[in-house]
């Protein structure tokens, strides 16, 4: 999937601003950003529900706006709106949707239905938000898509279901050439599965790199004086944030290799601990 110089406007709002993005198979990509950052807009461009004003968006070698059944049978999409056919029973809806996909996996369907306790006899309209979301996920993964796009997929799931869902994603990605793009605000969940992060703000991509690289870029250094006070000037570079109190300091450092940090720490007569930042903290630093 490639996006080149993609721009999209909704009236006066620039929803996507000069987006360049390339997504290769075999990855789980976390698409992160505040509300209105342009995540859903970007995802909808990938599957051709939105058309770009400028630039080019290509999915599976085809212009996204011209995607046909050949390409779309390879894409699964769980959307924010949660639109389903309310008047069908769950069984009927699954049968209806599966008719469109030649490679629908009945075994996977049965396993998922059993694991997630989905009632096949229930009417779709009477499902709770969590059950609806589980059903929407099943409909998106049942045909084992090569590209799975998840737009806020876990928002209505309880913690246990969310954990199962993350396991499921890891199972899905085991198959060759599968790609998952997940957009979510629950960063603590996302960071358990993604191997690539794309952070957006106001329609622009602020950061696009592998998750390992991202985690290495940001570190937290906890310093405690072994006796007396900490030196006024701490010998660390690229400090993003510093909090000091009573002989202790917590520093957030950007773009400074761990080895260098350890070397700098040795010069201090203090107890120093270097740790990796959680995704939530990294995200806050990047967007601010």
């Amino acid at each position, binding site marked *: 999937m490639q996006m080149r110089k993609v721009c999209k406007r909704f009236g006066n709002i620039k929803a996507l601003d000069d987006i360049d993005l390339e997504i290769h198979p075999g990855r789980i990509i976390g698409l992160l950003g505040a509300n209105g950052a342009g995540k859903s807009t970007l995802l909808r461009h990938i599957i051709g529900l939105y058309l770009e004003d400028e630039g080019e968006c290509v999915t599976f070698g085809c212009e996204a706006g011209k995607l*046909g059944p050949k390409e779309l049978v390879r894409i699964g999409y769980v959307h924010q709106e949660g639109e389903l056919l309310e*008047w*069908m029973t769950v069984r009927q809806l699954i049968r209806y949707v599966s008719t469109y996909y030649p490679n629908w996996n009945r075994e996977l369907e049965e396993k998922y239905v059993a694991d997630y306790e989905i009632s096949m006899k229930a009417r779709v309209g*009477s499902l*709770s*938000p969590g059950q609806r979301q589980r059903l929407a996920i099943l409909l998106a993964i049942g045909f084992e898509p090569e590209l799975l796009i998840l737009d806020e997929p876990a928002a209505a799931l309880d913690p246990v279901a969310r954990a199962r869902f993350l396991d499921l994603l890891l199972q899905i990605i085991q198959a060759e050439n599968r790609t998952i793009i997940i957009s979510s605000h629950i960063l603590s969940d996302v960071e358990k599965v993604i191997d690539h992060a794309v952070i957006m703000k106001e329609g622009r991509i602020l950061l696009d790199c592998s998750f390992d690289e991202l985690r290495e870029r940001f570190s937290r250094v906890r310093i405690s004086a072994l006796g007396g006070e900490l030196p006024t000037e701490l010998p660390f570079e690229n400090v993003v944030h510093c909090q000091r109190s009573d002989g202790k300091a917590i520093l957030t450092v950007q773009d400074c290799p761990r080895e260098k940090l350890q070397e700098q720490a040795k010069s201090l007569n203090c107890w120093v601990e270097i740790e990796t930042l959680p995704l939530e903290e990294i995200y806050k630093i990047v967007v601010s």
Partner: protein
Amino acid sequence: MSILTVNLKHLYQRRGLWLVYVFLGLFAFAGVVAPLEHPGAGKRHYIGLVALAFAIGLLVAVLPIEVLTKPFSYCLPGHRKVVRRFIFWVGVIANLLGSLLFLGYPGLNSGQLVLVVCSAFCAGLIFYWLGVGLAFGVRNSVAWIGLWPFVILGGGFFGLHIVIERAIVGNPFGVILVGVLSSVLAWLWLGDARLARRYCGVPGIGFFDAWNRDKVQKYRQVRAAKKWDKLKKHPSPWVETFFLGRMNRYDHVSTGRYIWGGLYTTFGIALSQLSQWKAAFLSVFSALVLVCFLGYMGPGRNILFIMPGLMFAQMRLPVYSSMLISGGRKERYRCAITLVITEAVLITVLATIVAALSLPLAAIMPDITLRDITFAFHAMNIELFFVPLLMIPIVFTIQLIYYRKPVVMMVLIMLLFMVLFFGTSILWREQLSAVINPMYIVSPVVLSWVLFTVVLRYICMRRCLVGQGRTN
């Protein structure tokens, strides 16, 4: 800013309401002009504004209910009474102004006039509380406002307004007593904490939400989730087997699969209902009743061919669906056009059959005399069969363009309805229908389909299909 002031803002902030005010204003104008033109006592022209109080009550009560249904609104401690104050004072002021009309009531001395004005004020309050009661008592009562013109016309036909005017003028003390009692009861009832609790944070359909599919869908979901929905409608097994079988006949990349899928999701539930003998019998029976009723409506019977188009305004084409199946934009386009053609043909055939039923009935149906007016049965103008074919593509064109602006959509469709209703009523009198050239009919029908196809293709191929992009 006080909460009461904020509440009052609802009365002008919602632009859709302005249209309602225009209608209310026109009715109020007629209510004022009628007694000025016919000032005689007992001529039943003074009652318009009193009756209008019912609609005002309904409207004024529905607005705070909409606010109540949102979390953290008047459900907070100390805020509950705002609703009562708001409704009460609007009622008092509106009816005070309305009752002043009775100052011109002829044949009364000044003392009697004051008494009659008080009586009219209380009568207005009674009507007003009825409207308020309906709003609070019946869930999603907004739909009832559509019946109001019929109640007015029906009441007028059966002389209800004479009875009310006589009661106001002839028995002022009784009316005042009932008015005061009803106001006290309404005051106590509106202050009841249980009433607020019933609505606080519970999703409902607001004044203009009936045309907002997203809200209606959300509301239905919530209701269904709470197991209130007892209907349990879903496709019958034979319907499912039939449509899925048809879909499976086509290749996975073939448009045929998507067209049959679209037909299934559009007609599946209706076919399932009709396949039950009760529903089928009810449909035939309703058709017969409809024919009998419309036959006595004079030129208004042409509504038979216009109403279906109006009903289809609520039907959803699979263009703006965010439920992704493997069909692309081209499949959406072809599926939508097939659906609309199928619907138009079906409706045309059904309306024509119903119209044909009226032909033999015309010979046997008797004339009916009601309050000195004789109603004769007329067969439907079967030559109007083309109207659904003309109307349905226009309705869907409006729906496609104004998908996210339901009020504009509704107004335009109502306008179309009126143009066609009055147009056919005027043109299809015998003298004129004879001179109408078939080309005059074929041309607009063809044009409407061309317009629909062009708009549909443009939207399917060049516009955003979900979310905010639908309007851009």
